[in-house]
């Protein structure tokens, strides 16, 4: 039998040792590990005051910004990538296996490994903290063509929306004649991101389409409507390449938004916009495009009619937009392409672009059904 003193000594010894080390750690934490307050600037306009010294991932999580991560910050999934603008030190070896050369060039970091030790500036995709539900009032409905309407919405709550030109929202259609449950349909924002309180949508009537019928036949000025967003990866990439936009019908919407945004930012890249329509009555926003041609240095708008009518007095390009595209593009061009239109049109355009050696990864489009 052990005497009782053995137990007491062992408990005492462990306690003293643990307490000593614990105090040591607390002291170290308060002195060596204390990095004070740090400031995180997000996308140049949002500033967070945080306690320094912890990984960026957890720090942002405490602020209600959730970077997707599967492993919970152990550096083993490589998902929590964040673009660093300025402020942090060199790459850590635990980040390197997850980053391509290209990403390193862009200063992409793993947010679970990067510790916030001083003021840093990062860039996050807007949608990460930006997807919200909005209520808005219908401020205007205007006919663009015989079957496309432009809807102007004024935000009620929240009062502002931030989005990238080219992104889309999901419009909520309440229950009505054609649907027993509310449904959501995606529409690209047609207005310039600079306008945060007023947005525009361009919606083409699809026979018996639940949302389009609702918008075309039921929606009135002054009505209230709900949508959520913004979503999507369809936005202008930062590069030096020439830009080709291809759209048909209401595919005009995101392209118009991007063009207006380019005009505001005075982008000087060579830009061609191929717009396909059947006949003169399917063309719209021609004045706006002319204005943009005047504002944007290297921009040309090339509408193409597949079935020009006699009364159109058409002297522009004729034929399917793909044919016109094939005539204009050569495989020597250094370009990236942005497509928005029906799946059929996109398929056909992808074939032409492939023939002209445009790399697949430089062709962007939203797959709307």
């Amino acid at each position: 039998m052990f005497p009782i003193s053995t137990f007491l000594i062992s408990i005492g010894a462990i306690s003293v040792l643990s307490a000593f080390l614990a105090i040591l750690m607390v002291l170290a934490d308060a002195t060596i590990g204390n990095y004070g307050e740090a400031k995180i600037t997000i996308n140049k306009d949002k500033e967070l005051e945080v306690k320094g010294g912890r990984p960026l991932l957890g720090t942002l999580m405490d602020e209600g910004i959730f970077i997707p991560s599967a492993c919970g910050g152990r550096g083993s999934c490589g998902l929590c990538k964040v673009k660093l603008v300025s402020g942090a030190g060199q790459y850590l070896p635990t980040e390197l296996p997850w980053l391509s050369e290209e990403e390193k060039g862009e200063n992409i970091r793993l947010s679970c490994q990067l510790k916030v030790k001083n003021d840093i500036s990062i860039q996050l995709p807007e949608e990460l903290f930006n997807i919200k539900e909005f209520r808005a009032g219908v401020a205007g409905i205007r006919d663009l063509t015989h079957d496309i309407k432009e809807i102007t919405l004024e935000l009620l709550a929240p009062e502002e929306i931030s989005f990238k030109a080219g992104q889309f929202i999901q419009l909520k259609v309440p229950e009505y004649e054609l649907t027993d449950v509310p449904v959501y349909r995606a529409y690209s924002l047609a207005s310039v991101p600079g306008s945060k309180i007023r947005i525009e949508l361009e919606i083409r009537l699809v026979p018996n389409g639940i949302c389009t019928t609702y918008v075309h036949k039921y929606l009135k000025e002054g009505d209230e409507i709900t949508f959520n967003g913004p979503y999507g990866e369809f936005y202008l990439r930062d590069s030096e390449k020439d830009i080709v936009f291809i759209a048909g019908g209401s595919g005009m919407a995101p392209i118009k938004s991007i063009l207006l945004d380019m005009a505001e930012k005075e982008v000087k890249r060579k830009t061609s916009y191929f717009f396909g329509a059947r006949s003169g009555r399917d063309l719209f926003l021609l004045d706006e495009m002319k204005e943009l041609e005047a504002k944007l240095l290297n921009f040309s708008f090339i509408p193409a009619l597949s079935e020009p009518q006699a009364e159109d007095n058409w002297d522009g390009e004729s034929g399917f937009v793909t044919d016109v595209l094939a005539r204009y593009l050569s495989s020597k061009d250094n370009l990236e392409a942005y497509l928005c239109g029906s799946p059929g049109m996109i398929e056909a355009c992808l074939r032409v672009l492939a023939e002209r050696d445009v790399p697949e990864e430089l062709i962007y489009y939203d797959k709307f059904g």
Partner: protein
Amino acid sequence: MNTGIYPVAIFFAAIFTNNILLTNYLGMCSFLSVSRELKTSLGLGAAVTFVMSTTSLLNWVVYHYILIPLELDYLRFIVFIIVIAAFVQLVEMIIERTSEILYAALGIFLPLITVNCAILGVSLFMVIRNYSLLSSFAYGLGSGIGWTLAILAMAGIRQKLAGARVPKGLEGAGITLIITGMMALAFMGFTGI
């Protein structure tokens, strides 16, 4: 045995004939997960070597001057773990604060090896084998270098392996364990020297 040569013999034995990873199969988890690249393997190896040699010293002092006098040597498992964890944590904080380069090269790996069984293994073997302070340090240093040697060899092999066609079911840890086994066999050859 000559006490002057003894620590040297222990040092080399720990690297080759008694390699902690290849004969005791300790420290496998970080060995498996980090042995994909030579550079990171070297960083981890350096961290392991540093921690092994310093904690073997620390634990030797704790064992001989606290645990033995108090007749508490049966508590060595718990005590060693606490000492290692606290020490590694402390070192990491200091490195992180003082040198960004050193932190990137070494410090970042420290949390990974706090609970590495090879580290605890070294401290425990040192007690079982009744090493002196100097021998313990030699053993810790040698084991660290031996571990580094093994992970570097593995990283080299795995870099070659990246281009090989490994059967699907054996990809990753599977093939690595098989290769580790073969490396262990090869290291047995040192025993004969």
